[in-house]
């Protein structure tokens, strides 16, 4: 089965700073999902990437999937305390664009200090 490594495991930044979280796979990523999770809450969908070289942005968050489709990065520009939480990457195991059987990384805990 697929394994996803996320780095760093945790990150503390000052408000206003930029940051990047990485997600690396042992296999080709057919579908790569980024979610955010706050303690006691469910996962909030951020973005889905499918094509090599694809890049998507929403507000101050940009996600990229490399050309080889084995690594994805999540970049936050001018971080705010509202960005704090656990960021999880998940990969489609089936390779058919289905989102029902995702393998997740262990998550990156982001703290943003005011």
């Amino acid at each position, binding site marked *: 089965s697929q394994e*996803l490594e996320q780095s760093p495991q945790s990150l503390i930044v000052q408000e206003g700073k930029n940051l990047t979280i990485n997600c690396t796979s042992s296999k080709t990523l057919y*579908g790569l999902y980024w*979610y955010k999770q706050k303690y*006691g*809450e*469910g*996962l*909030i*969908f951020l973005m*889905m990437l*499918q094509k090599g070289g694809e890049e998507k942005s929403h507000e101050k968050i940009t996600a990229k999937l490399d050309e080889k489709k084995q690594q994805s990065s999540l970049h936050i520009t001018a971080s705010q305390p509202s960005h704090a939480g656990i960021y*999880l990457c*998940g990969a489609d*195991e089936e390779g*058919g*664009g*289905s*989102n*029902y*059987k*995702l*393998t*997740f*990384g*262990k*998550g990156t805990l982001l703290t943003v200090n005011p």
Partner: protein
Amino acid sequence: GAGVSQTPSNKVTEKGKYVELRCDPISGHTALYWYRQSLGQGPEFLIYFQGTGAADDSGLPNDRFFAVRPEGSVSTLKIQRTERGDSAVYLCASSLSSANTEAFFGQGTRLTVV
């Protein structure tokens, strides 16, 4: 309701007891998923329903775990003879379909087996 609802939000049970966890998906969503998240880990896939049928139950850890979705809406995850290792947050998600669509997660049920 507007989102995926899971009840109870917290459940403490004694080792060996039977528990039921309930998931109310978003109205109209045909696909429903159960995941389990242990402390410090990403969610792990348990089972996927398309309509009333379990399309993939390969993630269920053993035969003590069972899930139903009799009318294609509400789902119940049932755990018999609970063990301390079953302690985790059980997450439910639903989506319009299983292909290339966003999955919406509930806030989870935190199960503690003592």
